[in-house]
């Protein structure tokens, strides 16, 4: 299997470990990714605040290039990219004036977009194309005893619940359970991590990240599994700042793909685990009385 792939800026920067681990586990599952040639920034949420039309045009270049390359799908692992590209697809379908603006702009670059590219998320591919059975077969070191709080964040399930439920998503839960981990049931799966507010308005942003860590800790989680480079950045890079403000919360945050890699027996370095600021370690073996 080979999937067209849109990395997005974050996976080349703050989210490097996400790309490293995702490529490694997909490769392990026999799936290769083909990077979209000369892709550009999706615009994320920031561009939409400045100029929505330009934001749409910016993002559309990627879909048009994908279509020209003959791709019918595009894998977008970063939550912001996933949402922006999806949203563009929706807007083009729903609002003729957006479609016209986009087409006019594309024409300047001798491009054209017929709207045939389906934007997909790795969780969607893993569960619905590759399948849990194939994944289970690859598990050599089940994550037994590891309590993981699955954290989906916002933009992969909202406002378009394309492959999972907007309020109670379960795809990552199923995946983690397949890896042998103990999935922590907690109510903040899809709450906001603070987004860029952690940097801009720390009083507001950091609090949201803190709430997530705090509740995960209260539920006995050892680690938070995330799907988004920004969530990971907030929960990992600002961890020290959060502890400084609210006291110790010894919970690392890793990408779900890193946990997959560990269960597949891949080397932590290959999965970019050394890039975490809050180091991830397996909890010491639980002391269970022998029967």
């Amino acid at each position, binding site marked *: 299997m080979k999937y067209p792939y849109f990395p997005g800026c974050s996976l080349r920067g703050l989210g490097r470990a996400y790309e490293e681990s995702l490529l490694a586990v997909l490769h392990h599952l026999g799936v290769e990714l083909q990077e979209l040639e000369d892709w550009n920034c999706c615009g994320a949420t920031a561009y939409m605040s400045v100029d929505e039309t330009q934001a749409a045009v910016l993002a559309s270049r990627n879909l048009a290039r994908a279509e020209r390359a003959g791709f019918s799908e595009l894998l977008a692992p970063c939550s912001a990219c996933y949402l922006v590209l999806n949203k563009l697809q929706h807007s083009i379908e729903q609002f003729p004036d957006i479609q016209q603006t986009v087409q006019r702009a594309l024409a300047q670059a001798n491009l054209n977009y017929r709207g045939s590219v389906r934007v997909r998320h790795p969780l969607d591919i893993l569960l619905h194309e590759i399948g849990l059975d194939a994944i289970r077969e690859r598990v050599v070191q089940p994550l037994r005893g590891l309590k993981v709080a699955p954290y989906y964040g916002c933009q992969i399930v909202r406002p378009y619940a394309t492959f999972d*439920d907007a*309020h*109670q998503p379960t795809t990552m839960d199923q995946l983690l359970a397949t890896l042998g981990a103990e999935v922590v049931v*907690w*109510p*903040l799966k899809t709450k906001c991590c603070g987004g860029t507010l952690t940097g801009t308005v720390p009083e507001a942003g950091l609090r949201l990240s803190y*709430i997530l860590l*705090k*509740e995960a800790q*209260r539920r006995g989680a050892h680690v938070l599994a995330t799907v988004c480079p920004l969530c990971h950045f907030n929960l990992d890079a600002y961890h020290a700042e959060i502890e400084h403000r609210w006291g110790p919360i010894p919970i690392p945050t890793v990408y779900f793909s890193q946990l997959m890699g560990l269960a597949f027996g891949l080397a932590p370095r290959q999965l970019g685990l050394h890039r975490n600021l809050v180091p991830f370690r397996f909890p010491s073996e639980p002391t269970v009385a022998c029967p």
Partner: protein
Amino acid sequence: MTPPQNHAPKAHRAEPRIGFYVCHCGSNIADTVDCAEIARYAASLPGVILARDYKYMCSDPGQELIQQDIREYQLDRIVVASCSPLLHEHTFRAALARAGLNPFYLQMVNIREHVSWVHKNREAATAKARDLARAAIQRVRHHQALQPIRVPIRAEALVLGGGIAGIHAALLLAEAGKRVILVERQPSIGGHMAQLDKTFPTLDCAACILTPKMSAVRAHPNITLWTYSEVIKVEGYVGNFTVTVRRKPRYINEALCVGCKQCVDACVFKDGKFPDEFNAGLSHRKPIYLPFPQATPQVVVIDPDRCLNLKTGKCKKTCVEACDRNAIVFDQQPEVHEVKVGTIIVATGYDLFDPTRLPQYGYGRYPNVFTTLEAERLVNSSGPTAGKVRLRDGRVPRSVGIILCVGSRDHRTHPWCSRTCCMHSMKLALLIREHAGAEVTIFHMDIRSAGKGYEEFYDRCLREGIQFIRGRVAEVTDWAMTAKEEGHLVVRVEDTLAGFVRRIPLDMIVLAVGMEPQRDARELRRILNISCSNEGWFLERHPKLGPVITFTDGIFLAGCCQGPKDIPDTVAQAGAAAAEALALMDRGYIEQEPNTAYIDPDHCCGCKSCLPLCPYSAIQLDETQGRAFINEALCKGCGACVAACPSGSIQQHLFEDEQVFAEIDGVLSYA
């Protein structure tokens, strides 16, 4: 059946004497159409003896004018140019009849809805009115004397659904001496009201006021009660419906069972194991059970999906031994009955919104989130906890929150207001506080307490210390942020009066789930051939003036199947439906517009092309003569056969070819 008058050979006609009247309708018509000019113009047309304009033709003096003229000038055709015939055709026809003229010698011209209300230019409007008047005048010459068709009406009624609406309607009809068949899908009648504890605003006990009515239904000699039954087919028309009812087997001989419950005690299941529908799943019952203590009829029922013997054939059948009346019949089969009735009252009630559709409220995920119906059972002294309000783990709640508009007033689910939940939630607030001593908070967008004594009931709740927080709840969660919240459910809500977001820890949450149409409403609608709104509520003929009659003559609506309402409104509507049905049945017949089709026997060649076209199966072939004929009582005047007849031998009263052509000529012949 066909009244000979309507088939009388067309007598040679003398030149008709036409009277023409144009109405000002106050200023409704006169502002846009020059009425005097129309009258002047009409008077100039051949056959018109006189033409008048008048301020209100429908008024008594207006009608009197027509009557006088008919007598004085021997008029034999009348044209009235005014409003829609829907409104006043019967008025003017009656005026003709009073003057001794056959009422069908009338033709109306709609110069209000079709002219003055839709046009602005006075000149053009007047010209259009002139054309329409000319068409009517040419048409009316060809009118014939007709007799309205009389159809007899059977004096039996079928009531569908045994909630309070169906019960009330059935009792009224029975009291008036009509025979009633009451068909209820569940093993007992009573509907939702039977599950309620007390009822707002007077807080009288639901069972106390409902049970006597249920027993009255059972005992009434004029009522045949068929529970555990469903209507599967309805044929025929007003006055003569043939209804097919399927009676599901309850595996009990209803005539023998007295509801002693010896069998229930003897069942091999020592304890109840299956969710008890009547207690909204809060308790468990056995495979053989009596739905609830006051169930009517007092006859047990066996659940075939749970009974070991019915499922596997392997059971000691201790119930059979226990029944000394030999009432248990394991090989009972479904029965299908056909009944003939004159009228049908539909009272199939409502269903409740499924709160798992709004996962943010945690129903099904957090054990201590309940629905209002569950809360009714909890506060009820014959309920699963004998009236003690308890959390699922048996603790007494200290604080309870009731969330309103769950699945109502929400464009993602149901846009309508369910109308009773504000009130019954306030009722439950008082009852929960009384039974558990708990602090109760109601979360609302606004309190809708329109109704006699309802706002006063709200005042009472305020006075008695029920807390009200205005704001639509965002979520119910077990995410605790403080020690105080630990172990509680937390309601997150923007308090719109205080102006900020609050987190309120509570022990128990009750969701005021809204009403929605019964799941099978669309299916039933098709069986009954009535209409329902997009959402699935059955449609009344007119929201103000015909609130209980449907578009299908002889079928009436009562209660929540037509839309959300409380018990007082339900009972009022049931009474109205019974009265409408009675009015029909007591008259014994109905008069129908004689717009039926008829076949000229001399021309019909018996080709049968019309037979399959008739939606009402009113056409039959007379095999001996090789000609088709139309049963006037079945014909609805749709005209399908008239248009299709290859030999042109089908005509339709009121729409004869010559009438229609004359009208077309009239419109097109520019003066």
